[in-house]
C-alpha cells in the first residue's frame, strides 16, 4: 500500500500551523485517501484507477493547503495557551492560595522558610505537610487532565501539572536574594548547606514529586483515543 501520509505531506507542503496540528491534518487526510482507495479496490477497480480516484478530486493541493491553513489558524487563544499556560497558571495560582492558607494555619503567613521549619519540626505540622502534598497531587492531576483535554501532548501535560513548582522556585530565589542582600555579620541560619538541602528536599523536590505523581495517570491517552504519530 502506498504511504499516504508521505504522499499528502509532500503535496500539501507546510501549512503554517503547529507541527502537532499539521501531523493531525496529514494523518486524517491520508486516512481518507486510504478509504477511497480501499473502496475502489473492493468495487473491482485496478490499483492505478483506485489511486486516481483517491487523488484526482483535489484540483489544487496548494489551494487546499491554504484553505486548511486558514481554517486551522488559531483563534484568540492559541493551542499552547489552551493546553499549557491556562491549566498551568490556574494550578500555580491554586497552589499559591493553598500555600497562603497553610501559612495562616500555622500562624506565620509571611515567612515561608519558617513555615517549612514549622511543618517539618512538629508532628501536627507533619500532618499538614502530608495533606499539602496530597493537594499537590490533585493539582498535578487537574493540570495534566486539563492539558490533555485541551489537546496537549504528554510533555505539555507534565509541564502543566508541574507548573506550581515555579512558584516554589521563585519564592526560594526571592528569599535567598533578599537574605543575601541584607548585611549581616554572620551567615543566616537557613543559608547553611544543611538548611539549604532541607529547603530543597521539602520545598522543591517533595512537591515536585507529588505534582508529577498526580499528573502521571493523565500523560497517556485514554484507551479509545490516540494521538496521531508523526510521520
Amino acid at each position, binding site marked *: 500500500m502506498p504511504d499516504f501520509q508521505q504522499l499528502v505531506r509532500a503535496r500539501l507542503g507546510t501549512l503554517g500551523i503547529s507541527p502537532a496540528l499539521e501531523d493531525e491534518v496529514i494523518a*486524517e487526510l491520508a*486516512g*481518507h485517501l486510504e478509504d477511497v482507495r480501499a473502496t475502489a479496490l473492493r468495487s473491482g477497480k485496478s490499483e492505478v484507477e483506485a489511486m486516481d480516484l483517491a487523488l484526482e478530486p483535489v484540483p*489544487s493541493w496548494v489551494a*487546499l493547503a491554504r484553505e*486548511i491553513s486558514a*481554517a486551522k489558524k488559531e*483563534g484568540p487563544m492559541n493551542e499552547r495557551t489552551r493546553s499549557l499556560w491556562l491549566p498551568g497558571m490556574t494550578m500555580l495560582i491554586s497552589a499559591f492560595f493553598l500555600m497562603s492558607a497553610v501559612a495562616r494555619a500555622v500562624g506565620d503567613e509571611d515567612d515561608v522558610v519558617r513555615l517549612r521549619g514549622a511543618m517539618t519540626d512538629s508532628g501536627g505540622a507533619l500532618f499538614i505537610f502530608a495533606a499539602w502534598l496530597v493537594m499537590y497531587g490533585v493539582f498535578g492531576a487537574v493540570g495534566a487532565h486539563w492539558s490533555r483535554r485541551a489537546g496537549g501532548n504528554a510533555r505539555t501535560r507534565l509541564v502543566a501539572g508541574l507548573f506550581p513548582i515555579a512558584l516554589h522556585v521563585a519564592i526560594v530565589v526571592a528569599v535567598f536574594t533578599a537574605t543575601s542582600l541584607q548585611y549581616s555579620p554572620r551567615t543566616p541560619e537557613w543559608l547553611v548547606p544543611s538548611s539549604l538541602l532541607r529547603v530543597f528536599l521539602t520545598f522543591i523536590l517533595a512537591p515536585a514529586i507529588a505534582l508529577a505523581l498526580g499528573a502521571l495517570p493523565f500523560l497517556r491517552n485514554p484507551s479509545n*483515543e*490516540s494521538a496521531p504519530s508523526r510521520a
Partner: protein
Amino acid sequence: MGVASSIKRGSAELAILSVLVEEPLHGYEISRRIEEHTGGVLRFNLASLYPMLYRLEKRGWVKASWQTTTSGRRRRCYALTAAGRKQLPPLRNEWRMFFRALDRLAGVARA
C-alpha cells in the same frame, strides 16, 4: 464572498450537520453518507470536506477526537456539539425559506 460560494458553503454546512445528528462519524463516512442520502447529488471530496469540517470545529459546532477502530486504524471522528445541534433548526429554516422563495420566483418546484 459571492452568492454562489455562500450557497455552496451554507448547503455544505447543513449537509454535514444533518448527517452528524445521526451519530459521530469520521470524514470519509460523512462524505459517503451525504452522497448516499442525496442519491449522489451532493458529493464531498477531500478538498471540499475537510476545510469545511475544520471551520465547523473552530466555530465549536462539531468536536473531533481520535479513536481507534476494532481493526486498529486511527480515525478522527466528528460529533455534533450542543452548539452545533442548536444551529441545525435555524439553518434548516433558512434553507426552507430560500427554496420557497426560489420556487415563488422561478417555479423551481414545478420546473
